[in-house]
Structure formats: structure tokens, C-alpha cells
């Protein structure tokens, strides 16, 4: 398959053209390059996917090696691409959703002075993300991994004149780099054990050489998990994502919702063999996912900024994906990744449209009644919200989340506790999503709508809304047709979750009903509270415990506060105190001592002969004394 390299190369070429063209390019030309390169890449990806399905490769994947990256002793990682069924899904989502968001950005960023820079960074991001998901070895994956981290940093801090944005950008880069360092150690461990980082070889050799539960396997999986936690904003490294909303909204949609933050999910699914060999690490994935989805679900409930609601929601939804990975439901995680990419990109883009038409207002308490003013935005946002809340039967989010809950219940690695966490999370999701819709689109009008979106904004919204509805019909429970297309397609890359298929159908239907009830209950409760009885909500917020809970959740459970005191302040203090390097002062001390001595001795050079004579006499006496004493 000789076309694989074109998929990342096209956006990379777009980046180079924009970076070197700079201000010589007109805005129109920059837009054409920026959007066109990703569009072309999406077309190539579609062609490759069609061929993958039409004339499947002999093995599980297409493979293309460009050149040997380096060769030291027997370690020879390549610049090479690997495209199996899972990669097909990721590549299509990255290029497809990426294209829509680029198109949207042409209008959203139209008046910005950094228009070309924006598209340059966005293209570089898409290229890096594609390298990440197509890499045939973990070192090249790491290149893409750090590349998307760089672009995330550059785009969060895109409006660099504001210090707050710079702070958020640095935080994102530094926190994720903590995880990346763990991941790098994992890579060293794997090279040490197997002399290779080629994913397929690694998986084969690990399966042959390590037994289930081996300490080495657990260490390797845990270190890779460290990288995944940073990138995917899971506990305890989740703190950077809410702040990352400082970037332009299309960036939040593409990088901090649809694609980059799911890189951790990709990494774990890609190396699932390691996690199967390390049940302890896999259980950790599930527990972290469950805890994260609950914590950030509560946080989402208390936010006032429309983008921060969505940010916490993203953390929470990735928590679901981790939960799925943790119970061995690999393809369920990828399924939720796909539907989430559709509806969360849609929600961010819709939020962007709202923010833009309200003169950059982001406080949901200053919005309201927008459904009449922005009908298309409203209807599409509603579709996205329904999918996020998991409105039964008609939304993609329902099918993917239901599959995760069902797997958490029935998989051999799952259990009632994990399932219950997911269920409570589903209720919370419905609650905060409906709250968001009610506050923004219903109630009295508070802001004035200044402008209406044009076609470049509307078309992506409409397409993503359609996908948020129909995107789930590729995998349904047995009671609802039992379609298995998605799971079957991925089967060559990802095994089925153990125990899920064997579980009785009646149990599956019952679980589906319970999950539906939780979502509906959340929707109805939030609707009643925020539309019918806003007084009750205000009353709760005024009580001492209500206010305390709200403040606690608003601040993300105090993690920032804790890290600030635990790491940031001590580090800054230690650095500032020792700015002049105490080691240097030791050398300067030596110098100071000698110059003091020097000044002391200078004093004796008075030029008066009697002083000199006295000195000579004194010296003679001292000398004689010593001679006598010693003898």
C-alpha cells in the first residue's frame, strides 16, 4: 500500500507552505491551503479505507516502511506506517472531523490577525495526529504524540498576548510531559526486554515471553498508562484540560475533544496485549476511568463557562472509554471514541457559534432563549446534546455508552461496582447536558445576537449533527437488531471482550432499560429543575452545603490547589532562592578571601622604614622562638 504516507504528508505539506509562505500568502490562499490539504488527506484516507474493505490486505494490515530511522546495535526503529482496522477508524475520524473543523475555522477565525499561523498550527496538528495513529512502532508513535502536544500548546496559547492563555498553554504541555516521561521509561523497558519497538513484534514477543501477571508486564503497562493519563486528561493528570479552553473554540473541538485527548485510548487499545498480560494495570485503567468520569461529571454540573462544561464533559466521556478499556471491551472504547468525536466536536462548534454571535460571551448564566434567534445552531446543538446525554434509541451516544455499560457489567474483568459508577455517570451526564441546553437556549433572552453563522459554520454543524444521530447504528444491542458491523470490522485488530457475547440476552435488555432510565431521569430532572423550578436550584445553591459543593466542583475538586502547593510553589521557591547558584558563591568566597588577604597585606606596605625594621625584628624573634620550641 504505497499511498499511506500521503495521508500525513499532505497536512504536513500544508503546514510547511503556510509556515514558509507567511504573510506573502493572501488569506484566501491560506484558507485554501489549510482546508484543502486536510480535505485531500481525507479523500486519500477514504480511498485507502475503501481499498481496505474492498480488497483486504493479506494479514491484518497494510504496511509501508519509508526508511530506517536509526540503527544502533540491534535496535532499528523505522519511519513506517501500519494501517489496520482500528487505524482506519482513527484516520477517518481525524481527517473527516478535522476537515469539517478546518472549514468551520475559515469563518470563525476570519477576522483574526493570526489567521495563517492558526492554519499552519492546525495542519501540523493533523499531520502529527495521523503519524501517531499510523505509526508502526512506538517510537514513531511517540513522535506524533509529542507533536500533537506541541500543537496543543501552540494553539492553547494562540492568543499569546494574554498571560492567562500562556499560563494555560504551559500547564497543558508540562502536565502532559509528566505523563510522557513515564511513557518514555516504558519504551526503554520494552527495548531492554525485546530489542524492538515495532508494535506487532512487541505484542507477539510479549505474549510468548511473559506470563499473565508478570511483574515486567505490569511495569510496562503501568508506564504506558502514565503517558495515556497525561494525554487523555485522566486522574490524576486531568487538571490541564479545563484550562486548555483558553484556545480558540475550533481548537477545543478538534484537539481537546475529538482527537488528541483520545490518544491515550488509542495507545492502550494499540498495546492491549500488554494490558491483558497485566490484569493489575488493566484494573487500574478501569478504576481510574470510573473515578474520572464521576469526578468530572460533578464538576461539569457546577461550571458557568460553556466551554468548561464541555471540557469536564470530555474528561468524563474519556473516562468511559478508559472504563471500557479496563474491562477489555477494546472495540467498545473505539466505538465511543468515534461517536464522541462526532457529538463533542459538534457541541464545541455549536458553542463557538453561540459565543461568536454573543460577542465572545461564554458565561451560560448570561445566555438564554437563543433557540429562536439561532435555529440551526439550536437544533444541531440539541442533537449533539441528546447524543451526549445518551437519549435512548435515536442517538449515537446511547449505543456506544450502552455498550460500555453492558461490557462493564458482563465482561469477566468487569463487575457491579464499575457498572454502577458508569450508571451514575450516565445520570450525571444527562443532568449537566440538559442543564446546559436549558440555560443557553431556553428561558429569557439575555444577550443580543449580533450575527448569524454563514455556510462554513452551518454545514459542519449539520453534517456532524447527522453523524451524531446515525453514527451509532453500526453496533446495537441484541434486542435492537443485534447489529455487529463495527465490532466485526475491528475484530482483526482488537479481540472481543471476554464473557460479553456469552452473557444472556435478557440481562442485556434489562441493563439497557436501566441505562435508558438513568439517562431519561437525568434529562427530565434537569428539564424540570431548570425550566420549571429555577427557584429550587437557586435555593440549593444558597444553602451552605450547596454553595460549598458548588465551589468545590467548580474548582475541579481542588486538584489545582493541591498541585500548586505540592509542586509548583516549592519548585519556584527553590529555583528563586538559588538563582545565583550557591556553588558559585563558594568559588566567589575563595576569591573574596584572597582579595581580603591581599588588602590586609597591602596595609603593611606603608613605606616607613621603622615599620619594616620592626617587622624584620619581630620575624626574627618568632623564628628563633620556633627553633627553640621545636628543639
Amino acid at each position, binding site marked *: 500500500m504505497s499511498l499511506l504516507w500521503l495521508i500525513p504528508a499532505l497536512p504536513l505539506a500544508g503546514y510547511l507552505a503556510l*509556515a514558509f509562505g*507567511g504573510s506573502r500568502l493572501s488569506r484566501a490562499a491560506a484558507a485554501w491551503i489549510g482546508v484543502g490539504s486536510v480535505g485531500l488527506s481525507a479523500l486519500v484516507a477514504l480511498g485507502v479505507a475503501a481499498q481496505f474493505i474492498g480488497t483486504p490486505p493479506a494479514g491484518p494490515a497494510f504496511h509501508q516502511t519509508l*526508511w*530506517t*530511522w*536509526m*540503527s*544502533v*546495535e540491534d*535496535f532499528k526503529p523505522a*519511519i513506517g506506517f501500519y494501517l489496520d482496522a482500528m487505524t482506519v477508524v482513527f484516520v477517518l475520524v481525524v481527517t473527516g472531523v478535522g476537515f469539517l473543523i478546518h472549514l468551520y475555522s475559515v469563518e470563525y477565525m476570519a477576522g483574526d490577525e493570526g489567521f495563517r*499561523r492558526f492554519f499552519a498550527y492546525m495542519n501540523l496538528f493533523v499531520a502529527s495526529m495521523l503519524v501517531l495513529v499510523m505509526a508502526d512502532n512506538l*517510537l514513531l508513535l*511517540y*513522535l506524533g*504524540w*509529542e*507533536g500533537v502536544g*506541541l500543537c496543543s*500548546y*501552540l494553539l492553547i*496559547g494562540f492568543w*499569546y*498576548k*494574554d*498571560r492567562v492563555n*500562556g499560563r494555560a*498553554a*504551559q500547564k497543558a*504541555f*508540562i502536565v502532559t*510531559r*509528566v505523563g*510522557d*516521561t513515564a511513557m*518514555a*521509561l516504558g*519504551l*526503554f*523497558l520494552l*527495548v*531492554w526486554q525485546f530489542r524492538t519497538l515495532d508494535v506487532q513484534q512487541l505484542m507477539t514477543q510479549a505474549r510468548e515471553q511473559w506470563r499473565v501477571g508478570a511483574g515486567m508486564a505490569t511495569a510496562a503497562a503501568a508506564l504506558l498508562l502514565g503517558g495515556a493519563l497525561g494525554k487523555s486528561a485522566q486522574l490524576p493528570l486531568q487538571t490541564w484540560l479545563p484550562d486548555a479552553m483558553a484556545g480558540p473554540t475550533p481548537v477545543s473541538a478538534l484537539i481537546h475533544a475529538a482527537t488528541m485527548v483520545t490518544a491515550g485510548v488509542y495507545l492502550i487499545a494499540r498495546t492491549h496485549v500488554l494490558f491483558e498480560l497485566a490484569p493489575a494495570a488493566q484494573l487500574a485503567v478501569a478504576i481510574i476511568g470510573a473515578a474520572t468520569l464521576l469526578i468530572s461529571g460533578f464538576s461539569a454540573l457546577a461550571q458557568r463557562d460553556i466551554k468548561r462544561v464541555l471540557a469536564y464533559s470530555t474528561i468524563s466521556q474519556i473516562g468511559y472509554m478508559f472504563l471500557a478499556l479496563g474491562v477489555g471491551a477494546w472495540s467498545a472504547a473505539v466505538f465511543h471514541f468515534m461517536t464522541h468525536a462526532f457529538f463533542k466536536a459538534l457541541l464545541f462548534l455549536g458553542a463557538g457559534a453561540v459565543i461568536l454571535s454573543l460577542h465572545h460571551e461564554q458565561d451560560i448564566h448570561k445566555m438564554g432563549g437563543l433557540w429562536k434567534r439561532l435555529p440551526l445552531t439550536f437544533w444541531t446543538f440539541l442533537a449533539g446534546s441528546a447524543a451526549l446525554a445518551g437519549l435512548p434509541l435515536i442517538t449515537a451516544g446511547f449505543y456506544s455508552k450502552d455498550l460500555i455499560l453492558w461490557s462493564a457489567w458482563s465482561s469477566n474483568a468487569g463487575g457491579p461496582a464499575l457498572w454502577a459508577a458508569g450508571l451514575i455517570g450516565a445520570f450525571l451526564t444527562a443532568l449537566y447536558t440538559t442543564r446546559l441546553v436549558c440555560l443557553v437556549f431556553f428561558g429569557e433572552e439575555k444577550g443580543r445576537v449580533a450575527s448569524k453563522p454563514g455556510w462554513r459554520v452551518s454545514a459542519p454543524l449539520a453534517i456532524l449533527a447527522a453523524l451524531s444521530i446515525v453514527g451509532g447504528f453500526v453496533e446495537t444491542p441484541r434486542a435492537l437488531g443485534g447489529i455487529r458491523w463495527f465490532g466485526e470490522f475491528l475484530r482483526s485488530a482488537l479481540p472481543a471482550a471476554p464473557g460479553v457475547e456469552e452473557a444472556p440476552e435478557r440481562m442485556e435488555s434489562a441493563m439497557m432499560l436501566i441505562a435508558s432510565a438513568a439517562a431519561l431521569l437525568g434529562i427530565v430532572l434537569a428539564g424540570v429543575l431548570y425550566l420549571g423550578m429555577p427557584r429550587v436550584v437557586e435555593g440549593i445553591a444558597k444553602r451552605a452545603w450547596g454553595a460549598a459543593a458548588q465551589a468545590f466542583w467548580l474548582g475541579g475538586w481542588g486538584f489545582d490547589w493541591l498541585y500548586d502547593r505540592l509542586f509548583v510553589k516549592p*519548585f519556584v521557591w*527553590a*529555583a*528563586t532562592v*538559588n*538563582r545565583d*547558584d550557591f556553588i558559585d558563591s563558594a*568559588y566567589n568566597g575563595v576569591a573574596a578571601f584572597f582579595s581580603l588577604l591581599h588588602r590586609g597585606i597591602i596595609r603593611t606596605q606603608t613605606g616607613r622604614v621603622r615599620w619594616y625594621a620592626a617587622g624584620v625584628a619581630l620575624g626574627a624573634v618568632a623564628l628563633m622562638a620556633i627553633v627553640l620550641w621545636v628543639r
Partner: protein
Amino acid sequence: MILTLLILILLIGGAAAWAAERKSPLWSRGIALGAVTLDLLLVVGQWAALRHAPEFLKPGAWLVETRAEWIPQFGVSFHLGMDGLSLLLLALTFFLGALSVACSWSEIQKRVGFFHFNLLWVLAGIAGVFTALDLFLFYFFWEMMLIPMYLLIVIWGHERRVYSAIKFFLFTQASGLLMLIAILTLQFLHFKQTGARSFDYSDLLNVAMTPRAAMLLMLVPEASLRFAPVAMALGVVGILYGAILAFAQTDLKRLVAYTSVSHLGFVVLGIYSWNAWAMQGAVMQMICHGLSTGALFVLVGLLYERIHTRDLRRMGGLWSAAPRIGAMAMFFAMASLGLPGLGNFIAEFLVLLGAYHVSVWMTALAGIGLVGATIYSLSLMQRAFHGPAEEAWSFADLSAREWAVLGAMAAALVWLGLYPQPVLHAAAPIVESLEKIGSALPGFFMR
């Protein structure tokens, strides 16, 4: 012969550049640039000619060798040789040398001829150090480059230049003296064992193989090996301590200087991990650090030329004034924090990979240095280029000449990041022979 020529070109070129100042400063600059570029071309030509030769991959072989009597009574000879490692370091030296002539083009206006004389003589000294096979000659070149270096600092330096120059001189003199003692001791031991006087590297290497000498000296590989765990720890401390100090600085140039401490910690860690990966990484780090930190210093210089300050507290928001300078700084800051795709990543990855085989904990600690590098690099960008402008700076963006200088360095880093094989290939034999020495002396590795 070619090695002598390399050094002579610089010595004569330097003198000519000084003399030519009377005609015009432009002549001095032209002659200096010409001489260094000629050397660069000669070295690259050697590389191209020799890279397929059989001895290129043979451990312990000299690709080119020159030898002449110098002071036979003491066994001192003018003995130069070049292997893959010297080839790489010579290429780096002349590459950076040519670029430093280019980037001084408008910055240096005072005593232009003498400046280039000193610059070229420093380069000649460095070239001598990288090729000398006689330890007396080695020491000679080592000391020879200090004097023009001292003059460069004291005449063309900025604030506190006399203080800095004296400090520089004392530190290098003191450490050079220790090395001289080591060399003389080896020579003495050799005389006692064989009755012949020699300063030759290979002769003294044999002496150092004996346990007694090895305990005394840290100069040569065998002895170094015993010192390995301590040195690795020093490397790790350097990585972390340098990173913290870099973050703390308010002077842009001092910040960059402390990043060097951190980067060179990786070199130390790599060398003393004593396996092919780590040592290849150390070689790679020397080259990539030279390029990335060199480029950051160039940026500091050209900013100083424009705004006459290096104080980070007065900077901020410079990106709006000069986006191209900002973009270049971003590129090299990313190289400095070890972004994959650029050479520094290959270097640090290989060093840590090799170190992991020796000590997991040291590697984990050194890995924290990657976070430290992220912190200081981003903090540099934030304080100098992002944020609101502290003062209403307005100045010219990169000129074509400056763009060419930085562009060449950036291109080299991309090349080394995506296809480092030529460098790894050239360094392979020396690494292999060092590894052999290591395996002959087991039991000194940590684990």
C-alpha cells in the same frame, strides 16, 4: 597532511584577517569566512570520500594520520589523527565557526580584524584538541585556545566582561593543570615500565591499563570506567540542577547557558553508561547541543543587538514585534526540550535508553530532566516572546543573513532528528572499541 592543513588554514587565515583590517573590515570578515568554510569543505570532503572505506567501520583505526618529531628528548611528537568521532566534531566546529563569523557580521564593529584573528585561533586550538594523538600536543592545543578565548571575552564581551574573563581563565587553567599532572604521571609511569619517554596516546593507553595507574587517573577510558557510577550520578545532578537554575534566571543569556549544564549532563550520563546506545547518544548530544544551544545564543545576540538588553523582565510580547525571530526561538526551544523529530531527541533518547540498561533509577531521575527542560524552555518563550509587551519594542525582524544562519542550524537539527544514521555510522567504531574496553573490565557497572 590534511589535518595539519586544517589547522594551518585557520592560523594563517586568522593572521591574514588581522592584517587585512587595514584595507577594510569587510576583507577581514571575508577572509575569516573563507578560511573556515574551506576547512568545513575539506572535512566534509573527507567524510564523503572515506565513508565507504573499510577502515571507516574498523574500531581503533585512524582514518587519517600525520606524525613528525617535535621534542624527541622528551618523547614529544607532532602526532595528529582522525577517527569518526574527531571527524564529526571537526565538522560541527567548522560549521558553527562559519556561522559565527556570519552572525558577527554586523554585531562586531570594534577591532574587526583582531576579533577574527582570535576567533580563528580558537578554532585552530579546538581542531588541534580534536585531532591530537600526542598528549603533550593535546595539552598544548588545549591551553593555546584559552588565550584568544580570554581576549574575545575581555574585549568584545558585555557587562562584567573582565570579571567573567578572569573567572573563565582561572577555572580552565586550574582544571587544565589537573589534567597536566595526570599526563605527566602517565608519562612517568611509562618511562618506569619501558625506559622510553613518550607522550603518545597509544603508549600511555597501555600504561593506563595497569591497575595502579587506573586507580590514579581519570583521564583515559579504563580509569573512567571505575569512576562510572559516580560520574553517572554527577550527570544526573547536572541535568536536574542545570534545569532548575535555567528556570530561575532573569538574564536570557544566563538562562541559555544553564540549559547547557543540563544538556551536558546527558553527555556525562551517556558516556559513563558505557554501552553503544548511551555513548552514541552522548556523541549525538554533543553535536545537537552545539547546534541548538548555539542557535539560542545567536538569537540572544541578535536580540541584544536590537533592544540592548538581555533582561527577561523587560521583554515580553516580542513575538508581535518580530514574529520570525519568535518562530525561530520557538523552534530551538523545542529542540532544547527534546521534541521528537529534532536531533536532540535522538540524543537524549539514546542516552536514556542506554542508561536504563545500567540503572533504572538514574534513568528515571534523569527523565525528570525532560520535564525540567519543558519548564525552562516554555518559560523562556513565555517571558521573552509571549504575554503583553512590557515596553513598546519596535525593531527589524530577521535579516536574510540571519535567516540563513539560523535556517542552516534548524535544517541540520531536522536532518539529525529524522535521519541520524550518517552520524551514528561515523561514531560506531569508536563506540565499539570503547565498549570492548568496558567488557574487558567487568564488575564496575551499576545494577
